[in-house]
């Protein structure tokens, strides 16, 4: 295996990050670091810049100013094998559910037999064995999200970043995904969870990052954040006030 595929990507850091569009500052963050053990919930209003921030840190887009580093270096292609980023809307390959998983394993350089075996186990864990041969694009919203999460985890990432993984899901799928997050926490794999569901953030989080108008206004232990909101914006958000 190439050396840069073995290197850790943690910590994921951003310094002086700025994105400006049409004179509007979408992201303005001095310093951010991901990789702390436990579940960090990223919360904030729609359009606050949460997804944009994650796309910056995962190297999907480049900042207008500032730098993003993984383990002190610029993001590198092979590093993506260790970064489990589940997008807001799952993008499935035009293949069966099983083939979607096998594809990721093959990209990691593992052989065909290992790919089949890992995909089978991942489908069982996600409770999706019965739809293994169904086209991934025919699955329900909940099944797609569970498959998408299985696809993220099959590469055994060092950090898992989930962008609203349970939005619009039925209770069964929601429970399945929350259980997986709890398992990752037990395995000491850092999880970053973007959510609008305050109850979910309360249930799952060790830390909370509150984002408003492209800025991180608070990054605190969850108990502390929820017991005494650290700023007026966070207080208004928690109370459902714009």
């Amino acid at each position, binding site marked *: 295996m190439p050396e840069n595929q073995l290197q850790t990507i943690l910590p994921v850091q951003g310094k002086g990050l700025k994105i400006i569009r049409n004179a509007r500052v979408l992201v303005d963050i001095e310093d951010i670091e991901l990789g702390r053990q436990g579940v960090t919930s990223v919360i904030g209003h729609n359009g606050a810049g949460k997804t944009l921030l994650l796309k910056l840190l995962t190297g*999907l887009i480049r900042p207008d100013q500032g730098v993003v580093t993984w383990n002190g270096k610029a993001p590198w*292609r092979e590093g*993506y*094998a260790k970064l489990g980023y589940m997008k807001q809307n799952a*993008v499935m390959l035009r293949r069966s559910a099983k083939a979607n998983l096998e594809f990721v394993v093959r*990209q990691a350089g593992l052989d065909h037999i290992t790919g089949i075996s890992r995909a089978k186990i991942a489908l069982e864990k996600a409770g999706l064995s019965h739809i293994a041969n169904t086209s991934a694009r025919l699955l329900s919203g909940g099944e797609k999200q569970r498959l998408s999460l299985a696809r993220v985890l099959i590469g055994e990432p060092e950090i898992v970043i989930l962008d609203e993984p349970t939005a619009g899901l039925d209770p069964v799928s929601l429970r399945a995904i929350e259980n997986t997050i709890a398992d990752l926490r037990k395995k000491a794999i850092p999880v970053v969870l973007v959510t609008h569901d305050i109850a979910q953030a309360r249930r799952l989080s060790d830390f909370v990052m509150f984002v408003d108008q492209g800025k991180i206004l608070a990054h605190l232990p969850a108990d502390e954040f929820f017991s005494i909101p650290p700023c007026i914006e966070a207080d208004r958000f928690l109370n459902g006030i714009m």
Partner: protein
Amino acid sequence: MSDNSNTIWNAFALVATFDADLYEIILLSLKVSLSAVVIACFIGIPAGAFLATVNFPGRNLVNILLNAMMGLPPVVVGLILYLLLSASGPAGVLRLLYTPSAMIIAQTVLVTPIVAALARQSLEELNTEYSEQFKLFGLTRLGALSTLMWEARFNLLTAVLAGFGRASAEVGAVLMVGGNIDHLTRVMTTTIALETSRGNLAVALGLGMVLLLISLGVNALVYGLRLLAGRAKYA
């Protein structure tokens, strides 16, 4: 009325009795058109993929030109190739004029922009959908491109079919560079034009029926495949 009935009856008879001359023309037509489509795919699909995924200055201009070339007038293509391939032309030394190879070149010139433009369009749409995900998969540029093409396989099939449709129906360019020479460069479309002018309508009609059947068969096959793939959400 009776003459028309006889013509239709004779046309059926020629096709049904496997008339040797007729089938020689049909086979040459298929050989020329399929060769042109295969070559056009080897050029057009990678070109379409490049235009769909790589940003460079003047890309929009190239796209406009490519789309415009989808409607290249066959007689103009025929004339230009005639000038190039004729004995006094720059490629005259190759002695390709009035050979099936010249006809393949002419059809390739007409079909390649169609395949490339349609491939670009469908690959561009899919690339918008997949580009971030491919990056997250850690794919190389080549890996992303080959995966993209596999994901677009049914759309690309439609592009190939459109190319085949253009090639098999083409008459002007192949007539000019092929010469419509009996047992050498005579294909279905040129024979239909010739035999109609001669008043030999049975042969023209027989070939017309075969041409329509081939076109219908290929379209039905691709339509069926796309329908099945669409139902199973693979397209």
